[in-house]
């Protein structure tokens, strides 16, 4: 029966199409539902991928800027949520997995959210930050759901971010025109502190070599330019700020990564080079002349010595250019000191005079606990040139060597031993009274050899034989660094100009006897923040404050300086701690003694105009100490920091800073630490030697620099560099925070 029915069904031709369609309906529905669901899956996957991409990029960027792993995590998570919210309701998203990796230091990476200190395999090599976002979602299939109920979606994205750069061009430098009246020719330059290979940590002990383009830069740095430049570089890698000739603000270009510090370099042609002169001509005062040999038989003569017979034939200034006629009655002989050198230096490795006393200092060394000096500054002594000028006059050969320095003895007020005692230099170039004070420099301890071999007979001046083998000349003096700040035992700086002078008491046998712990007084460098709205001169450069008031704690420790501009309406830097009313003499009459100036907060005169309640109470309980400048009564001519800050270095984050820091059991002071042993933070303490240009409007800084010479006990008259520096406006030169490298 069944067989018969089947045979009948197979023979039946009616409704064949319907049957065929009925059969085809299943695959058709499957195909259609699959197409629809695949489209839904593709769309959802695209959106999920966009969500993880955006989250990774946002997290990397946030980390790069905030240096907070917590912020990076939160921003990444929030960004994912915002984009993921667009996914339709039939997609269930799981919370994303956000993995963080950072190869920087603790400050750069932040510490709240966990992160890996090594990069993931998906990260680009050599980056600073890497953020990987992975997410899964379950999509409920619709028409296809009867066969496959759900589809698991997954997406992952990795953002790798390095440090970007901010360009600074010399044309954007706005600097004040104040500068020292030193006999030296000096210049101040700004440079980018080199970063380590990972790009995260500044190497404060490194200063870049001036590239070949610096040969055209203004000021003495041009003499230090190398012969090469890296590929792609088209400008000097130092920014010219100002020099002692009155030039300001142009030349050079540097690029900075985020939070890369700027440091300053002070370049000084040591020793009255063209004292009171703006030219580069070198005059010779003293010469050694021999008629027997180029290596011996020399006798000292005044510069311009006339060869017999007289009257002489006067040649040009430089003997090498003089060719007297045979039989001429006489010739004036002159020596020739090396370029850049009127007061010589010696090589610290062997004590021999070097041919160039062009010294370069770095402010950044203070960050590492070193005085702001650099390798070329050595012991300053007069010296005899090794170069011999040979002249034939009337058949006699004259060998002439110059005794340097060579500024004219007449017509100058310098009371320099080298001129008053130059006879001592004959046969003994390291005479009594010579300036042997120099500065220290990084790694100097390891490289320096005993100087005593080169100062054999000068015990009277106190410079010799502190130790025959371990002398460092001079050890640890003058750096305005808390790590090196050692109490000067009450030594009072010179009354003539306390900020710049050394105390004569430092120059004594007892000084030498203390070796690494000498008395010291003055700071060599002060970088003082002036805020973002200091008064400016007609050139747009920030004005150097007329003087500063100090904020001191109950123990008398200086914790802040507040600049004062006499007779000028300006925005107070430390609002709430200063009354900016001026009397006829230009000084603040309200506070005259520290005891009466306890800051009680709440009201100040803001900007010389309106009484404004102010909530910043960080100095409540501290004292405002009005520091009348040394040039009281001449309001515009002081321009020095408070007198006693010159021998009382301070650190705003650590109140007690003048005790130095030497770890227990150690024979040397620790580098890079405050007096209490905490690490020096250069950003929080720009006065230590480096600044970070991260303010908008740009911040300005006053720079006070002393090359550690002095006219008191030194041989020369130093009053070095005072100027201001204003960071560039970053918005116009920003080249980006670094594009993200997205993968995944």
């Amino acid at each position: 029966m069944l067989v018969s029915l089947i045979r009948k069904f197979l023979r039946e031709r009616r409704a064949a199409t319907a049957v065929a369609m009925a059969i085809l309906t299943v695959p058709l529905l499957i195909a259609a539902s699959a197409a629809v669901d695949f489209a839904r899956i593709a769309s959802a996957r695209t959106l999920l991928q966009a969500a993880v991409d955006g989250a990774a990029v946002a997290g990397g960027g946030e980390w790069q800027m905030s240096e907070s792993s917590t912020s990076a995590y939160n921003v990444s998570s929030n960004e994912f949520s915002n984009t993921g919210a667009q996914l339709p309701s039939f997609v269930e998203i799981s919370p994303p997995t956000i993995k963080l990796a950072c190869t920087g230091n603790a400050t750069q990476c932040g510490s709240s959210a966990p992160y890996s200190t090594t990069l993931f395999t998906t990260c680009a090599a050599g980056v600073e930050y890497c953020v990987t976002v992975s997410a899964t979602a379950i999509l409920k299939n619709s028409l296809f759901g009867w066969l496959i109920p759900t589809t698991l979606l997954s997406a992952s994205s990795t953002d790798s971010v390095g440090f970007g750069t901010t360009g600074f061009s010399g044309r954007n430098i706005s600097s004040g025109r104040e500068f020292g009246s030193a006999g030296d020719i000096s210049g101040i330059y700004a440079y980018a502190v080199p970063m380590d290979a990972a790009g995260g940590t500044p190497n404060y002990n490194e200063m870049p070599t001036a590239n070949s383009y610096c040969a055209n830069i203004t000021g003495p740095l041009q003499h230090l330019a190398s012969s090469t430049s890296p590929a792609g570089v088209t400008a000097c890698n130092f920014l010219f700020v100002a020099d002692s000739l009155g030039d300001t603000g142009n030349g050079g270009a540097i690029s900075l990564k985020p939070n890369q510090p700027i440091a300053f370099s002070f370049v000084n042609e040591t020793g009255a080079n063209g004292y009171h002169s703006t030219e580069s001509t070198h005059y010779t005062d003293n010469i050694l002349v021999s008629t027997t040999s180029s290596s011996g038989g020399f006798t000292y003569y005044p510069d311009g010595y006339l060869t017999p017979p007289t009257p002489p034939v006067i040649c040009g200034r430089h003997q090498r250019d003089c060719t007297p006629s045979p039989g001429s009655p006489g010739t004036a002989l002159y020596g020739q000191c090396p370029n850049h050198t009127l007061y010589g230096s010696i090589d610290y490795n062997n004590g021999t005079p070097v041919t160039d006393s062009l010294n370069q200092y770095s402010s950044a060394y203070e960050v590492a606990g070193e005085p702001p000096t650099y390798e070329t500054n050595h012991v300053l002594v007069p010296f005899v040139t090794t170069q011999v000028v040979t002249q034939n006059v009337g058949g006699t050969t004259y060998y002439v060597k110059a005794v340097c320095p060579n500024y004219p003895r007449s017509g100058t007020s310098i009371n320099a031993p080298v001129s008053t005692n130059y006879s001592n230099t004959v046969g003994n170039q390291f005479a009594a009274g010579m300036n042997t004070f120099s500065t220290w420099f990084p790694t100097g301890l390891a490289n320096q050899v005993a100087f005593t071999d080169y100062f054999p007979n000068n015990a009277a001046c106190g410079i010799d034989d502190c130790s025959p083998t371990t002398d460092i000349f001079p050890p640890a003096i003058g750096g305005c660094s808390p790590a090196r700040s050692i109490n000067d035992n009450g030594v009072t700086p010179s009354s003539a100009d306390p900020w710049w002078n050394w105390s004569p008491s430092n120059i004594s046998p007892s000084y030498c006897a203390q070796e690494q712990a000498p008395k010291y007084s003055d700071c060599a460098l002060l970088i003082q923040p002036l805020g973002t709205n200091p008064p400016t001169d007609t050139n747009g450069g920030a004005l150097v404050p007329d003087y500063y008031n100090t904020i001191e704690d109950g123990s008398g420790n200086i914790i802040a300086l507040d600049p004062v501009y006499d007779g000028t309406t300006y925005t107070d830097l430390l609002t709430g701690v200063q009354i900016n009313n001026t009397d006829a003499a230009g000084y603040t009459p309200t506070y005259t003694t520290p005891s009466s100036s306890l800051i009680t907060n709440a009201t100040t005169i803001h900007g010389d105009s309106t009484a404004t309640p102010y909530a910043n109470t960080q100095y409540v309980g501290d004292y405002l100490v009005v520091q009348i400048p040394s040039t009281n009564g001449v309001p515009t001519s002081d321009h020095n920091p408070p007198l006693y800050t010159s021998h009382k270095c301070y650190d705003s984050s650590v109140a007690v800073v003048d005790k130095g820091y030497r770890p227990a059991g150690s024979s040397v002071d620790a580098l890079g630490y405050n007096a209490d042993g905490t690490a020096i933070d250069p950003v929080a303490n720009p006065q230590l030697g480096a600044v970070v240009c991260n303010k908008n409007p740009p911040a300005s800084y006053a720079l006070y620099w002393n090359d550690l010479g002095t006219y008191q006990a030194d041989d020369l008259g130093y009053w070095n560099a005072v100027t201001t520096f204003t960071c560039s406006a970053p918005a116009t030169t920003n080249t980006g925070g670094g594009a993200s490298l997205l993968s995944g």
Partner: protein
Amino acid sequence: MRKFRFSRGKLGRRGIAAVEFAIIVPVLLVLFMGTIEMLTAYRTEAKLNAIAFNVAQMVALAQSVSTANAPIANATAATPLTADSPTVQVVSLNDICRGAAKGLAPFPPGGMTLAIASITEEQGPTAQPTSGNPAYAATPTYDEWESDSTAAADGSCSTPSPSATTTILSGSPLTTATTGASSMVLNPCDNVIIVQASVPYAGLIGLFIKHPLTLTQTAYVRWAYTLPTTELQCTGCTLVSAPTQVCNADNTSNN
């Protein structure tokens, strides 16, 4: 009778296929057209998503943007770059819109709207007082700008006026710290770029319904050049909350 029966039986099978086909065609049409329609809609949505995200990326990689019709060249043969030339690349939002319209092909771009907004936290609640406003701000302040363009059928884009109404920012995206744009700008100078791309999707459904479906996709990205002192600036955009576009992570912005 036999003849009739024969004829009816023979002729009765004629047209059966047609009848059956006529019956099945509407079902097939609905099935096929529905499938195509859904695929097209999802395809359009995916295109729109790609457009929104890619536009957001383009804006994020611009150093500065403008509503000008053409990109602003930094240097030409007549006016080459000099030492004092600006170095900031200005990207035209209008140019981006026209590119997005072409990217929508083969779907018609007419009526596509592209709303581009940037939100940057200018300063946080702990900002230092400035000379003009020496009081603390109780809440963070934000710099916000937006530019909304509409594409025509030929792919050209309108250039909105700086005072035009805004689509994204009018929705108060900064209301909470956990959702919305403010959740992505936690610190001063943090930035989020929001791009909302919409296109009216008519398709075959449009033959039957009066108001066509509007597809909308939104992308969120962060400006690639975000720095502690810099924010993305737009020339000609509608500035929502601040007259100047300056931020500072050090909380010393002087707006």
